[in-house]
Each structure stands twice: as C-alpha cells, then as structure tokens.
C-alpha cells in the first residue's frame, strides 16, 4: 500500500514516500518517485488512483510554474495548497473526479515551513505532521496521550526523550518529534 509521511520542524519540513508502484500484488516498479517539485521550495507528494496521480500533480506543477512566469515570483506554499484544493474540489462534483491523496510541503520566507494534508474529498489541513496510507495509522502518534514503548532484540525500551539526534544511534527505530 502506498504511503506518504510528512513532519514539520522548526525551519524545515521532512517528507518521505515509498518507492513502489504496484498493480494488485505485483510490484511493477520499486524506484517510482511520488514527489513532484512545484517550485524551488514546494514539493507535492501524491498517491491514489493510477494515472490520476500523475495527471493531477503535473497539471498543478505546470500551473504553479505559469504563475511564476506571469508574475515574476513564486506562489507561496499556502497559496499553492489552496489552489490545489480548489482544483480538486472543482473536479470532485464533475463526471471526472481525481482520486488522489496529497501532502504539500513548502518553505516560505515569511511564514516559515508548512505541511498541508489534502485528501481525495478535497479537505485541506495545515498540520505539524501528517501521513497517507497504512503508514498513517502505524507511525504518527500524538505522544502525550500515549505511553510508548518499543520492543526489539535488545528488549523493551521506553521512549521518553524522542529527538532526531538522540535516535540516530539506533537506526532500526522510527524517529519522532514530540508533539507541540
């Protein structure tokens, strides 16, 4: 199953996507890139119906570039996200809706980093962390509401101090940002 993950940091957004293009049980490609560069500082991650994903993402990509050519400066991430959502919404109640789930990650000089979650029903939410796919339910937790422990070959571990640098020594564990 395809999944996308995004995490916003103090001055960056980190995104990841799987590299598999599957057709039912067969992996057709394992080097498939699901990230589309909209502009110098905006990435669009797109999963969903085969065909719809690329068609929709490339359409948004070219329109963002057109804005740059017309106006001499690039769209901000917020503007790009809203433009994308509007397009998705317009097509939703047509005969040809796009069945795509998106994460839009961008950095703006004025607003800082931004991660936007969009789904095929054209909902839009700016969030500090987000994901699509089965990965969504497994890895993103609002940690203060949970007690989290990890079990691996070394035994049971509490995960109190969760920072990016702290966990570098243990490559097999997932790394998290503590919520807020």
């Amino acid at each position, binding site marked *: 199953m395809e999944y996308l993950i995004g995490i916003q940091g103090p001055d960056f957004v980190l995104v990841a996507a799987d590299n598999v293009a599957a057709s039912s049980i067969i992996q057709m490609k394992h080097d498939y890139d699901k990230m589309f560069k909209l502009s110098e500082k905006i990435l669009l991650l797109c999963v969903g119906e085969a065909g719809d994903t690329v068609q929709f993402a*490339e*359409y948004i990509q*070219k*329109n963002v*570039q*057109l804005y740059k*050519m*017309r106006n001499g400066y690039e769209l901000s991430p917020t503007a790009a996200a809203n433009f994308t959502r509007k397009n998705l919404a317009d097509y939703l109640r047509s005969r040809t809706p796009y069945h795509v789930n998106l994460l839009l990650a961008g950095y703006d000089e004025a607003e800082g980093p931004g991660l936007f979650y969009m789904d095929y029903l054209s909902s839009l939410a700016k969030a500090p962390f987000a994901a699509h796919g089965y990965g969504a339910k497994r890895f993103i937790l609002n940690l203060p509401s949970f007690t989290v422990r990890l079990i691996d070959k070394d035994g049971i571990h509490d995960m109190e101090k969760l920072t990016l640098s702290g966990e570098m020594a243990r490559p097999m564990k997932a790394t998290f940002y503590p919520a807020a």
Partner: protein
Amino acid sequence: SGVCTRSCKERGKDIVVLGVEKKSVAKLQEERTVRKICALDEHVCMAFAGLTADARIVINRARVECQSHRLTVEDPVTVEYITRYIATLKQRYTQSNGRRPFGISALIVGFDYDGTPRLYQTDPSGTYHAWKANAIGRSAKTVREFLEKNYTDEAIAGDNEAIKLAIKALLEVVQSGGKNIELAVIRRNQPLKILESKEIETLVAEIEKEKEEEAEKKKQKKST
C-alpha cells in the same frame, strides 16, 4: 505608427543579448520599469516594439503555451516552436472577422534543448525569420546597419563582447546614453538575467574609454 521603443538583439556563442531603449517617464510617474523584455519560459524570452497592451496578450498566450507544451510533451519548447506559435496567432488575427492585427513586432531569443542559441523576429503580418542579430522599432534601420557592419566573429567572441556590441548598437540611436538602456541576457542553462543600471553604466564607461583609445590611435597614425 505606435512603435515607441527600439530593441536590439543578438546571438553570441553561449549568450543571447537583448537591449531596449527605456521610455523616459514623466516627472510624477513612478520609475517602475515598463518591461519591454519578458521571460516566456526559463530558457526563452522576448522583447517587443509597438503597442504594449497588445504585447501583454501575446506574451500571456505564449507563456501558457510554453507550460502546456511541457505538460503534454515533457520537453521545453524550442525557440522556433514558440515563435511559430506566436506568428500563427498573429496571422489568425489578420484573417478573421471583426479583429485587428496585433500591433507589435517581437524579437524572441533563447537556447534550444540541445544548447543552440536562437533569435527570431515576428511582425504583425505573422511572418517570422531567424536572425543572427537584429533590431526593431524606431530607427531600427540605423541600428541594423551598425550591426551588419560590426557583427563579426571576434565581436561576439566572449559574453562581455557580445553585451558591449548590443550596447554600442543602441548608443547609436539612444539620446541620453546608458541611463535609458535596459539590457537582458540569457546564458546557456541559466534563466533570464536583467542587468542592473550600475552594470550598464560600467559597460558604457568601458565603451567610451575604448572609443577614446581608438581615436587616440588614429590621431597618432595620422600625425606620423
């Protein structure tokens, strides 16, 4: 009638240079440069002479076509393709009901995907031709004659030389010198760069110096 700028363009080996005469603004008018040079895509740009309002329409259509081409064909436009598109657009308006032709001549420059520099000119009739160097607008003939005399392989040997040649050509007809010249360059694999007035002033000063040195040499030759 209605042409109000002069632009001159030429093609070097790794650079294409576009120069236009800036229209002087009224006292109370903001000196926001009326851009006669516009980027159509990252590797193509165009300068025009004529009705600015008509140019806006043509440029917008060309920009959309550049992105549309990238979307369908996954390749950037060649300079010839976008020139042909603009020329076809202009021609349609010469043969349609209730429309008037676009009142602009355009010079379209850029680099093709394979790295070749190109320069094309279109006019309101919808014809287009490729050029090595050209000028349009007021006193275009004078500028073109200057280019015909001075466009040699050594004159365009380097990027700086090509830029100076464009400035020299414009200085032939521009009244007040460097202040009224706007210059843009595209280098291979780099986006359009519009030169700052400081850089233009520096280059104009260099040209003046070279002219003086030439005149000195000639004087000495005559006297010996």
